[in-house]
């Protein structure tokens, strides 16, 4: 069992947890992820290492409540434990001094882009960050990102904070301005965002690294459920990735695979809400 040491509510649907996991913290690096299983009945879900403290033996995760597992996780509190926590999985980001780089985070993708941005900055790169969310209340860590960036652009879809527009707008302007050579772009966020970032950088021939969020089970190469089609054939995201060259990814196949379990996901949420409702009532009744 792995104890939750800290919990922060970053927005209505985005939560942060610091979890006691010395076995993962010892070796964790930017770009890697974990597999979380809440309890005996739960599924295994992948969550990125948003931060780590090897001395304290802790791992920070940030998640958006999109379905049954993440909603359930969101109800846990400091002092509660999760049943399984494996990692660090996947290859770490290749950190070097490339020159000038752009780091982009969309929505909950701001969490995983942060440690990468920080490491790139520490390695001596000039870092331009672009972060975005649907609206102001979904945006978090602007201050943390600012602290590790030389230049930062903030957008919201609805214009409630920063600039109104998509992440690709400032990206395109920077690339078109050609003020300096952009050595590499990192983009993490919803598949659709990563797809359009890749399409935007392609004509400029700027290498673009994306972190793919396929459906996973084991996270160790055993099931093949996370496979993705690249120009050179199928790869397993959990062991060959999670980072890939965005220009080589078959985005349509990826997005179609992400939506394959939609009916079951809906059913799971309904079932869980019913179950939780019943539990809450029982607790309330017991409390009287």
């Amino acid at each position: 069992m792995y104890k939750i040491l800290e919990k922060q509510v970053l927005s209505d649907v985005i939560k942060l947890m610091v979890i006691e996991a010395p076995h993962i913290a010892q070796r964790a690096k930017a770009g890697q992820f974990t597999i979380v299983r809440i309890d005996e009945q739960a599924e295994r879900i992948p969550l990125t290492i948003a931060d780590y403290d090897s001395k304290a033996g802790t791992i920070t995760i940030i998640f958006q409540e999109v379905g049954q597992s993440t909603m359930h996780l969101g109800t846990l509190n400091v002092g509660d434990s999760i049943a399984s926590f494996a990692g660090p999985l996947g290859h770490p980001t290749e950190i070097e001094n490339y020159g000038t780089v752009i780091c982009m985070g969309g929505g909950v993708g701001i969490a995983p882009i942060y440690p990468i941005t920080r490491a790139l900055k520490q390695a001596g790169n000039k870092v331009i960050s672009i972060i975005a969310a649907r609206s102001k209340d979904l945006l978090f860590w602007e201050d943390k990102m600012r602290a590790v960036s030389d230049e930062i652009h903030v957008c919201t879809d609805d214009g409630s904070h920063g600039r109104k527009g998509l992440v690709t707008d400032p990206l395109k302007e920077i690339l078109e301005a050609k003020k300096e050579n952009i050595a590499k772009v990192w983009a993490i966020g919803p598949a659709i965002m990563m797809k359009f970032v890749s399409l935007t950088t392609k004509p400029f021939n700027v290498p673009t690294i994306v972190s793919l969020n396929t459906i996973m089970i084991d996270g160790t190469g055993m099931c093949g459920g996370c496979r993705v089609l690249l120009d050179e054939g199928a790869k397993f995201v959990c062991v060959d990735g999670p980072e890939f060259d965005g220009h080589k990814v078959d985005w349509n196949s990826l997005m179609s695979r992400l939506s394959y379990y939609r009916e079951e996901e809906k059913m799971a949420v309904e079932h869980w809400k019913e179950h939780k409702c019943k539990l809450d009532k029982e607790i309330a009744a017991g409390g009287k």
Partner: protein
Amino acid sequence: MAKLEPKERMKIPRQPMPEQDPKIRNANFEEVALGYDEATARKEAERCLQCKKPGCTVGCPVGVRIPEFILAVREGNLPKAVEEMKVKNNLPAICGRVCPQEVQCEGKCILTKKGKSVAIGRLERFVGDYELAHRTCPLTAAPATGKKIAVVGTGPAGLTCAVDLAREGHKVTMFESLHGPGGVLVYGIPEFRLPKKVVFGEIDYAVECLGIQVRNDHVIGRTISLNELLEQYDAVFLGTGAGLPSFMRIPGINLNGVMSANEFLTRVNLMKGYLFPNYSTPVKLGKKVAVVGGGNVAMDSARCSKRMQAVQAKQTGTEPGEVHIIYRRSKEEVPARAEEFHHAIEEGIICDLLTNPVEIIGDETGKVSKIRCIRMELGEPDASGRRKPVPIPGSELEMEMDTVIMALGTSPNPIVFVDADGLERTKHGTAVADVETGRTKKQRVWAGGDVVTGAATVISAMGAGKRAAADMHKFLKGEAPW
């Protein structure tokens, strides 16, 4: 029973195994074979001729003392039967259920030629279940030696090795990448063939009696590497199995609805997907399922599919649908245990033999809709001695399918070899290790089971774990330096 003459013994028919009715069992996940009761077991034991040079023992990969344990069963001395069994085999309740007996012990039984072999596997299961219920043969550890051992992987190879070393008084820690121990016994072989309470019963017992530590969620090569383990432990055993699935190189394998047998079986068995939504891992299965392959893995996938279809049909009030096995050779070459193939047919699974997929075709949403196959015929024997299947030109056919499960064999997962310099591997990705001792090319590292042989059997993995444990113990005592 009075003492019988061999002739009379040979007149006793092989005692049938009580089983769930095929039409009922193909809709539930409960065990198919129900096990002998004591009277039936003793009657079956009467059939054994107590050969002076027993072929059965030669056929068993670990040389179980078969006539000795059967004699004890015949005499009704079950604690003695357990004791005889455990000299060579720690896990009879498991092996009795899953060994391919027809090509091992029973295949070499003298009665095979004269009719039907003694049902050694069924008797072994009976003895194993007796031990699980009564624990007449307690596990005890020798005084502590102060040596520390890491066992990587908790399948049959790792478990056997850990138990034998812990009994010698060494301090054993097992590392497992998944959230619980057992390896294929838990994530691969389904509940209806090997109930998980049997596997967990054995593991919990060993852990409690011998103080073995199990560290789940530790992926060696990621969480901690082999080289780092060697800094902390006196010796390391690798029993990481062959868990990496292969996909056919044909168009359409990335369509929705195509999955590896590992993914499907993991969802169903390890994650208990058949209890969705009470358990959160969904299993998506259509009304027309094709399982490609002919081994145990294919049979298990097909039989689980049949059951999942029944569960889902009940939930939705529809008809269950059909399951096909597509295999490129003929019935004679099917590599699965004979009993599993027989059970699959009984349960209503359709076999398309001498057939090989060439393409999987999708609909406009990216989901499987058809599978294109070609018929095969058997040509000249190949290197393995089996007749090689060759495609019949112009014999292509299409079958409507909405799910395709690839059960094509597996190879060792390479993650464990990260930061493990000097550990030699073959071109198939298996670790190079001495057959007798399990020693690899890297000092203080032993290996055994599927990671060395490629996908094989439970009993061969256990045998390898046992041999390695014996050599590791000698090494740790200083009797067999590296």
